[in-house]
């Protein structure tokens, strides 16, 4: 089982030029255990991406600690789906996915993943020839291909058309159900958060801290029922005054 402990006492961006020193995160603490799917919601610019960068090991300049354990595995695998696809333009879609695997590692799933993402026909195309939606799907396939223990996703379905977004959401849930993995998912859409996650962490304006930790206890089988989802959402908004359906 994977465990993630986040304890950030402070994260500050230093003063650069005319911009003032900025406290982005203050006393943010939460733990994710087992096979949890957790959504982070909060106002724009509150520091969600900074938090993901810290958890993903891209930013070590903060006070506090991040602990990720997967049983006795010393080095858990982390995949990061960024806000923009960040594909290497000089490598084909397939090569971009293969490069994320560790040297010597092969994943026969790549072709299956490409097909499931609707990318089989463009596997050998360079990113410049792909639409933004396709590039986003390649970035998702790259993250899924490395079979991560922790999957970090920063608004991954933005700019996907509703049917493709729905298909990729289902695929994400299938992958998450098949093998134990923690998903940390940033979204501005509370409906999406409730449809996908076990827990919704509501974050405050900058300096960011945890405002609410809301368990989503609707059985997954019932999440396709839009009436039940709307009732849950209404209750949530009524119960927590700071919560909005769109952040």
């Amino acid at each position, binding site marked *: 089982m994977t465990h993630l402990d986040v304890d950030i006492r402070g994260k500050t961006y230093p003063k650069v030029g005319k911009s003032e020193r900025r406290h982005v995160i203050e006393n943010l603490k939460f733990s994710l255990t087992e096979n949890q799917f957790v959504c982070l919601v909060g106002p724009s610019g509150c520091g969600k991406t900074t938090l993901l960068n810290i958890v993903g090991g*891209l930013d070590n300049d903060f006070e506090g600690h991040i602990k990720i354990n997967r049983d006795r595995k010393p080095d858990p695998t982390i995949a990061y789906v960024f806000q923009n696809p960040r594909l290497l333009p000089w490598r084909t879609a397939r090569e971009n996915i293969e490069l994320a695997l560790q040297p010597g590692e092969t994943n026969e799933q790549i072709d299956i993943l490409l097909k499931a993402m609707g990318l089989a026909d463009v596997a050998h195309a360079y990113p410049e020839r792909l639409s933004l939606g396709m590039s986003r799907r390649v970035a998702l396939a790259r993250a899924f291909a490395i079979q991560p223990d922790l999957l970090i996703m920063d608004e991954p379905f933005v700019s996907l058309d509703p049917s493709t977004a729905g298909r990729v959401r289902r695929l994400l849930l299938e992958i998450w159900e098949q093998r134990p993995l923690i998903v940390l998912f940033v979204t501005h859409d509370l409906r999406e958060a409730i449809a996908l996650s076990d827990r919704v962490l509501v974050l405050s304006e900058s300096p960011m801290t945890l405002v609410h930790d809301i368990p989503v206890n609707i059985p997954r089988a019932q999440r396709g029922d839009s009436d039940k989802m709307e009732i849950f959402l209404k209750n949530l908004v009524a119960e927590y005054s700071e919560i909005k359906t769109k952040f």
Partner: protein
Amino acid sequence: MHLKLLVSTASMMLLIAIWQLCSWGFDSSLLPPPFLVTQALIAEIESGELPYHLGVTLARLGISFFLAMILGTALGIFLGRHQKVDRFFDGWLVIFLNIPALVTIILCFVWFGLVETAAILAVVVNKLPNVVVTLREGTRALNRDLMEMGQAYRFGTIRTLRHIIWPQLFPFVMAASRTGLALIWKIVLVVELLGRSNGMGYQLHLFFQLFDVSRILAYTIAFIIIIQLIEATILKPLEVRSQRWRR
């Protein structure tokens, strides 16, 4: 493709025609016509003089070029990645960039004697600052998003260099190679003229003393043909291959 060839052939024919016209207005010893220069070129090739001296110059050019490129690329990347070191050595670079080539050549011959090492060193010292500055700018312009992607997916040093850094630096390396080739062969000739007893520069000096303009032009044409061949058979295909991912 045919049209391109036709245009460049027509352009060269025009240049030769202008040369022919001008030569009618001058004494043939001052500006010999294309026919006399071609005769001199054939005679020099048949005697074996031109291939020998051209070969010697090309060897010096090759060694200096690769030394300047390898050292300059390594130093440029290092300075581009380390802001503080770059700030410290920036003044040095400006000084080396502005030292006249002739001064470096004379000093190298004075300090190390009229030997091959001094000749090569003089050329390398002249070219090195240009390569360093070009590659430093290339390194500063590296895409941070892609570097973070590589870090998130644990590419490690070698894979990051090969798949993320090198493709981005390649256009800068090509620019440094092109300007380098053009600059180095001119410096090599001066080095040979001042302190060697073989090579194109030495021969040109000899023909200058004999006032043999036909042979001066014959050697120049031979050299330009070689440089154009290097451009067409090595540099251009390399560039096309590396840029095939562009739309």
